[in-house]
């Protein structure tokens, strides 16, 4: 059971886990910390903590991705809190306000990231229909004219796009609800 690496026991397993999930962890960290160097630090710390806790990881309970994201969440919250305690020590004070300073803000940032990441994983036709109609709020007719397809086609792409997006979100560990 469990196709994920059993444990992050050696460097090859760590490197494989990074190749599989490093990019999305990094993007989630950038989204929630608003700062590329801090995000790098967060990803590094996530893998260090994962390696230290590897014996407690059970692939039957959670996918490696879900587990790594849970660790990243803690890392980001720790980093944000540490900065909040002593904001004056920030190397660049202008950067500090962009840092999510609590669990709620992290979760909000992570939720936004998840939807954006999931949208990248659906077909371009579905993505365009969802973004133009439901994110940008444009009329179906206008979007249909721009794409050169009938209005019914745009509506149908929105329907199938929402279904595909739900699957893509679930793959990222999204839980139904707000």
């Amino acid at each position, binding site marked *: 059971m469990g196709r994920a690496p059993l444990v992050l026991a050696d460097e090859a397993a760590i490197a494989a886990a990074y190749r599989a999930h490093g990019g999305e962890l990094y993007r989630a960290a950038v989204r929630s910390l608003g700062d590329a160097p801090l995000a790098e630090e967060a990803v590094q710390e996530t893998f260090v903590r994962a390696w230290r806790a590897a014996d407690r990881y059970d692939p039957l309970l959670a996918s490696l991705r879900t587990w790594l994201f849970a660790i990243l969440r803690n890392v980001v919250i720790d980093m944000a809190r540490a900065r909040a305690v*002593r904001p004056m020590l920030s190397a660049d004070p202008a950067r500090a306000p962009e840092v999510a300073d609590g669990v709620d803000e992290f979760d909000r940032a992570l939720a936004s990231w998840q939807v954006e990441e999931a949208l990248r994983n659906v077909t371009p036709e579905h993505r365009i229909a969802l973004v133009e109609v439901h994110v940008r709020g444009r009329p179906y007719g206008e979007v249909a004219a721009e794409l050169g397809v009938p209005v019914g086609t745009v509506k149908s792409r929105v329907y199938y796009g929402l279904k595909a997006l739900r699957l893509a979100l679930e793959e990222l560990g999204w839980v139904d609800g707000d």
Partner: protein
Amino acid sequence: MVTDACRDWRNEIAATAAGRPDPLRAQGLAAHLEGCPHCRDELAELAPVARALQLVDPDRLADPPAPPEGLGRSVVSAIREVRRSDARAARWRRAAIAATAVAGAAAMVAGVLALSTRTDGPDAQIVAFASAPDGVVASVELSEAAWGTQIALDVDGLADETDDVYWLWLSASDGDRVAAGTFRGDGHMQMSAALPLEDAARVWVTDASDEVVLDAPVD
């Protein structure tokens, strides 16, 4: 059961899920939903997805940030470093426990005391915190670095107290403090402070409310 009627209402269900129903068809959809559990489920399934879409910033979709090229290598080497320092920490922990046992006995007379022992490097020293809360064993190894002082902190028992963030500080003899970083819980941590080791007079740890938790003089 999915019927032709269900297929006819699909697009309207999607629009309704996203809060943009066609007012001309709303009544018809309501009537269909009334008698069709399948379509009610579908609406319930798509509505949260449509709500989640509202979190999207379309301008971020085009250029997702790519991780820097060397990050994968840094991850592997960070873990290699941690693995090495964990092995060292195990040795230091034994040294610190021995030092603290001695210091504890002496502290009954002297109040606050720290033991310093020279290690193999001429510019490195291990300081065990004698003034520590009950059950806490902590030590640091200070070594000189180009940017100031490299500090390897080894803590055991602090996580039992609180889940707070702690701060490690070095002070010069004039009292100016320089932060060496933050940590949480127990373990072995590498930190650094921009104060030359030869100027360091005190190494100490504060909790989130700036109360001193560990404190020791540096030779």
